[in-house]
């Protein structure tokens, strides 16, 4: 069977190349790669530290806050300036709105949803959908699954609802970020607050909103309809966690303590079991292969680092076709993203539930990863329904300074971290970025493993299920393709 080239892939961020081989009714080979390189690490070398959050904000226009936030947390560790609890609450609210909620709605319904819409599903799927009565009709209003599929298409009812919701979420977030993408209000140790009543507006919006619930149950319906259909890539997961808790102080030596307090806690899971929930330990286990290292280093607490650790690697332009690097986490390539966060949440804090839906882990497959994305939106809606301004100062608190630092905080797509070394305390000596797409789309990583062995949707439809796998991991190649080489 010849190779099938699905390049360029539509409805994903940026330039992605996907090539597959089919034998019988299965995919037997898959190769995904980035087709574009920009070189942010090179750009950052020698720049003033204070410029870094602003510059990295330009990495991605889709998740327009994650890199600025992560870089701001790096600066807090380097400079020893910590945000007050009030600052943290404002950041958590804005970050929940956009990136996480807005992005997840865009990806679920404006990108992925089409793959489950009437014009795109196979005849066999559609026939089954016509015969399937919806379980959650009272929540979303559709009688048959086929009725729902019709409304997922461009410009139809569900598509429009999602379009409106993501626009509103972004507008609310912008009231705190003051610009989106590329937040203007974030600064190390603080945030600029222009509207002191903004959290009340967020709370009111969430309490009055009915779109999130409707969209959640649309996805819950698809979760049942496609149950057991797609290939399970197993229970290896990684997350750095999401949303800081009280007591966050960016001190490297206390990383485990403040990491544990994140609303979604960090965790590395191998074969379903929690290996560690210690954020520092997870970060020490990250390696970027075939990029070589230039310097042997120890972490700020004296632990020897692998020569492939992002702190040790200097940036250059990578070879053609290798723009997405091979990333390992303690020797494996775990899935990162919403499903990883929910899995770790359920291990560490109990089963998550939101909008009267209790989430239980089923499998790491196309429909489960997609459902997890929308379920996260529902969880955050409930969090924001109860958000309160704790009052108090927005002034930074002074703390410990470091000459090397790491910021690690999940983006919507999963674990996002920046490692920085500053030898003179004022400029960037080295800046390394490992994004969630670097992990999921790593050669031999979860996406390629997810496609190989997946069933082909039908004759003449060799593209469909491979693209469903790709979109369920939601690549962001703008974020992914800028790493280092010796």
């Amino acid at each position, binding site marked *: 069977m010849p190779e099938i*080239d*699905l*390049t*360029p*892939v*539509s*409805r*994903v*961020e*940026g*330039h992605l*190349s*996907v090539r597959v081989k089919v034998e019988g009714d299965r995919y037997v080979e898959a190769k995904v790669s980035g*087709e*574009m*390189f*920009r*070189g*942010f690490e*090179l*750009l950052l070398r020698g720049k003033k530290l204070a410029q870094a959050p602003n*510059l990295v904000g*330009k*990495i*991605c*226009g*889709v998740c*327009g806050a994650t890199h600025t936030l992560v870089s701001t947390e790096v600066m807090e560790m380097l400079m020893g300036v910590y945000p007050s609890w009030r600052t943290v609450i404002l950041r958590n609210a804005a970050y929940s709105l956009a990136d996480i909620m807005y992005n997840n709605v*865009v990806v679920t319904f*404006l990108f992925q949803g*089409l793959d489950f819409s009437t*014009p*795109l599903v196979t005849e066999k799927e559609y026939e089954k959908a016509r015969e399937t009565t919806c379980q959650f009709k009272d929540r979303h209003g559709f009688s048959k699954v086929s009725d729902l599929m019709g409304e997922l*298409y*461009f*410009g139809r009812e569900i*598509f*429009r609802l999602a*379009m*409106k919701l*993501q*626009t509103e979420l*972004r507008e609310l977030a912008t009231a705190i970020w003051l610009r989106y*993408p*590329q937040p203007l209000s974030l600064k190390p140790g603080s945030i600029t607050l222009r509207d002191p009543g903004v959290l009340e507006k967020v709370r009111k919006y969430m309490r009055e909103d009915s779109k999130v619930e409707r969209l959640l149950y649309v996805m819950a319906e698809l979760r049942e309809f496609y149950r057991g259909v797609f290939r399970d890539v197993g229970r290896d997961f990684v997350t750095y966690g999401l949303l800081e808790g009280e007591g966050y102080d960016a001190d490297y030596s206390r990383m485990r303590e403040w990491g544990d307090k994140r609303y979604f806690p960090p965790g590395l899971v191998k074969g379903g079991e929690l290996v560690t929930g210690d954020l520092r330990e997870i970060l020490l286990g990250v390696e970027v292969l075939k990029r070589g290292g230039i310097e042997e280093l120890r972490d700020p607490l004296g632990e020897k680092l692998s020569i492939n650790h992002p702190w040790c690697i200097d*940036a*250059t*332009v990578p070879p*053609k076709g290798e723009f997405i690097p091979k990333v390992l986490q303690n020797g494996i390539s775990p899935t990162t993203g919403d499903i990883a966060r929910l899995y770790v949440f359920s291990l560490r804090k109990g089963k998550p539930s939101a909008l009267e839906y209790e989430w239980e882990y089923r499998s790491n497959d196309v429909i489960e990863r997609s459902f997890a994305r929308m379920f996260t939106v529902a969880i955050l809606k409930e969090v924001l329904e109860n958000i309160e301004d704790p009052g108090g100062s927005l002034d930074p608190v002074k703390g410990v300074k470091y000459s090397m630092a790491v910021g690690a905080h999940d983006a919507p797509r999963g674990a996002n971290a920046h490692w920085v070394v500053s030898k003179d305390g004022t400029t960037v000596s080295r800046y390394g970025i490992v994004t969630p797409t670097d992990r999921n789309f790593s050669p031999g990583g979860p996406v390629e493993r997810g496609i190989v062995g997946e069933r082909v949707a039908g004759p003449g439809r060799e*593209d469909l299920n491979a*693209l469903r796998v790709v979109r369920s991991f939601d690549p962001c190649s*703008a974020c992914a393709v800028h790493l280092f080489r010796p």
Partner: protein
Amino acid sequence: MNRLDYCQALEEILRHNVVWIEAQSCSGESVMVMKSGCKGMEDLFFHSSPVKFLSLLSSERSGYELIREVLSLNDYVLVVEGALPRDQELCKVKDMTCQDLVVRLAQRARAVVAVGSCAVNGGILRESGANSVGVKDVLGKKVYEVLGCPASDKMIVAALYYALSGGPDA
């Protein structure tokens, strides 16, 4: 002089083919225009109009067909988002470089609009390992330019409207 509001101008633009290509971009400008609020926006923008988009906001299918279809169009305005690297291998769409694609599409375009600072002059990527440049640097024809990082959706729509109406000489 007639005054149009944003939605009216957008509707007028979307009666034409718009080929929107991302080169070395972050999709920031695509995201800026991906907003609800204008009547009929969702229909027009995404499918039922003759608009052809590549990449982020693209059509239902993927693969080379998408490019072939776009390359066979005759009457369209070309929008470029993102910078073009000096080493052309650093930005590709299948076997074509982003620059080849932009140059080929520009030949038959009614007008070319560069949106965002990266497309205008390389933006911050001039300083990166890619040493990138803007669209005008590789095209020997007029390019309408919308600066900003990201460029504002209002300014993008205004520039597209202006480009389609033929500019001040029309």
